[in-house]
């Protein structure tokens, strides 16, 4: 063991406390800066539930589709079975109206509902999803995120029903 002369040990102690104080200062400055850079709450956490800005009979060609759901675009589509029931005036069943997070799973472009092709298409890189949100062609690596859909209103008059989209829990 090497013996440290007393004055040298004092110097070591001083240097250590100096380094400690400087590190503490750096942390005290960097911590608020890092917190400041984190986005504020209003722009991250979205709403849990939203009413679509159109009723079921405006589908499939609704103008406001996709719409804002807690800061992200939400796309509502009508499954072929839903289209048939809507035309014949039968009450709609669950799964006839579907809602998705409209952000393409490839690189966050907003997708488009193509009723005539019965698919969901992304204009940015040509990704294609079916009406279940499953990726069937092009670059998207995963299906679209699905939301829960509830219909509110008279089931015997399906066209006038409101569409309530909520996050799955």
């Amino acid at each position: 063991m090497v013996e440290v002369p007393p004055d040298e040990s004092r110097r070591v102690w001083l240097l250590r406390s100096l380094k400690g104080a400087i590190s503490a200062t750096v942390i005290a400055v960097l911590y608020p800066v890092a917190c400041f850079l984190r986005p504020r709450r209003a722009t991250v956490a979205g709403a849990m539930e939203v009413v679509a800005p159109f009723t079921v009979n405006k589908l499939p060609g609704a103008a406001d589709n996709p719409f804002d759901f807690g800061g992200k675009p939400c796309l509502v589509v009508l499954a072929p079975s839903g289209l048939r029931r809507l035309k014949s005036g039968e009450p709609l069943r669950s799964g006839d109206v579907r809602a998705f997070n409209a952000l393409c799973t490839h690189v966050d472009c907003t997708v488009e509902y193509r009723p005539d092709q019965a698919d969901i298409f992304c204009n940015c890189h040509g990704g294609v999803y079916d009406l279940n949100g499953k990726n069937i062609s092009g670059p998207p690596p995963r299906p679209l995120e699905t939301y829960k859909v509830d219909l509110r209103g008279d089931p015997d008059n399906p066209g006038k029903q409101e569409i309530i989209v909520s996050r799955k829990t």
Partner: protein
Amino acid sequence: MSRIGHIVRFLRERSGWEDLQSLANKKRVPIHSATHFYYLGGMALFLFMVQIVTGILLSLYYKPSPDQAFESVEAIVTEVSFGWLVRSAHCWSANLLIGVLFLHLLTTYLMRAYRRPRELTWLTGVLLLGLFMAFGFSGYLLPWNELAFFATRVGTAIVSKVPGIGHDLLLLARGGDDVTGDTLARFYSLHVVVLPMLTFALLGSHLFFVQKHGMSVPDLVEANRKIKPRCPSMPFVPHFLLRDMVGWYLALALLAALAALFPWELGKKLTDPFASAPEGMSPEWYFLFMFQTLKILPGNIALPWPIGDVEGEVVGVLFFGACGFVILLTPFFDRGRKSRWILNGLAGIAVAFFIVMTVWGWFSQADQTVLRIALGSLLATIVLFLLVPSTKPNTTARRMLYGVLTLTTCAFLLAVSQGLIAR
């Protein structure tokens, strides 16, 4: 050699690091009774760096439009974590920076550091002070609150008093006949693009000149040198730099304390630009001396023939313009001992005028008396402390100085403790 060693050698060979190092090793700082004045420049540089960092952070959330400016600043201080601290630090360090620059200017003058060959250092320095005051003025409008709106309207209206080109200058400053959203956009662009670019250019040359000519030794010390052959000095790296950093550390501590204990106010949202101006209208403290002067000038001043009656404001504007010009060109007015009597007299009058007018304007506002006393006594303490080396030890003057210094320090501590208790 280790891999990191290789990288270090690679960078050293290509970056000219050795040249920089030998330059730094060559630099020495003279030691005499006023050496501590040399720290003011470094402290201003440190506060400017704080301004850059906090300013960039604020610009991440700020939105320069009349509909959103106030709301975005409100969101910064209420929603963003530590947003209040960042904004408060930005405002406080801006004020400290101007204060330090005033002292830097004054002490540089006292040491006559502007003498040949350092005229350009002085010139760029004075211009930098002007730029920082412009920073303060343009930044004041950005929160788009009532006070900012009316202060900017008044401040830009003063520009219109310049004879001849006044109205054109007004239109250039406001981007219209009145202060509108276009003014806000202009001031924002000025504050975050134009002024920073000019500042970097001027600051770069200022630092280059300081580096090129080295630290100036006051002529009084130089005169004494005939008795003692060499003025002692210390190397800049690491001796002076480490002392400098202690100063930065103190500045950081003061800034943190001020920003945390006295968060900067948000003000009231400007709802109606056509409403009457609110009570307690005043600019930042470093414009107060001009504000107070213009307040007490009569509407019309009779000047001797052939000029005749002139608007008071015009006289004020021309007077301050001339003062700025004299300060800028001080190195060229100094022509030896005789001219120094005149210059010193003028400088004494100017400092006294600045202090009297600022204090007058400061205390004619009733609110926040404790904060005003705290800051006023702090400023007085600093100025008195800087005066200590100019008195000889064991004289009545030195003893009186110490006495007053004790009083102002007590006033400062009392005001701060009062403020803390009130909280």
